[in-house]
């Protein structure tokens, strides 16, 4: 079956623009995660969904960041009024359950560049 897909793969935005990043998880996966990976760093947690419920948004860096998963499948990460420090690769991952041993499967990421 298909893996996790993300679109667009690359996004260039001018400072102050709003962007929307899409994640299509593996079909049937309950859990969905967003991570942010700055250049030369490991990914850092942003937010977590279990089905359509956003159970943890503790990693979102500011109120300009918003995520949703309205029907429990596709998720969108929205960044309002983008800033240069938002430039990073945004990774989406999904897993079948939320068990601590469950494998998270990652998409290829969206590379956001804010000019």
């Amino acid at each position, binding site marked *: 079956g298909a*893996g*996790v897909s993300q679109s667009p793969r690359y996004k260039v935005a001018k400072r102050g623009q709003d962007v929307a990043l899409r994640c299509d998880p593996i079909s049937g996966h309950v*859990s969905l*995660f967003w*991570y942010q990976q700055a250049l*030369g*760093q*490991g*990914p*850092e*947690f942003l937010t*977590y969904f279990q089905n359509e419920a956003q*159970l*943890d948004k503790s*990693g979102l860096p500011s109120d300009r960041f918003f995520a949703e998963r309205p029907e429990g499948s596709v998720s969108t990460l929205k960044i309002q009024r983008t800033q240069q420090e938002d430039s990073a690769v945004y*990774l989406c*991952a999904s*897993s079948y359950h*939320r*068990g*601590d*041993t*469950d*494998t*998270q*499967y*990652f*998409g*290829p*990421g969206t590379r956001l560049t804010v000019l």
Partner: protein
Amino acid sequence: AQSVTQLDSHVSVSEGTPVLLRCNYSSSYSPSLFWYVQHPNKGLQLLLKYTSAATLVKGINGFEAEFKKSETSFHLTKPSAHMSDAAEYFCVVSDLGGATNKLIFGTGTLLAVQP
């Protein structure tokens, strides 16, 4: 709180020689530990995971890791490096004890394989 420390940011080996990528962890619980690999412009791929079963964990592509509680280490090894192993490797711990199964990544080790 859980954390991982990758002791080398860059490792260079010759093709056919052993690979050792070092990782130490800190955890208040019995941890779940993972190694992920990231090839350029590709998604993170799980190499192997430790979930309190056998301390020696075998993964894909000939990699293995040994969980050593006394040393709080989870080093990744491979007997013979291949050119295709050149990539960035992340040691990861699962954040236990909360409502979220988020992953906490190390800063990564870039593996170069020389011909």
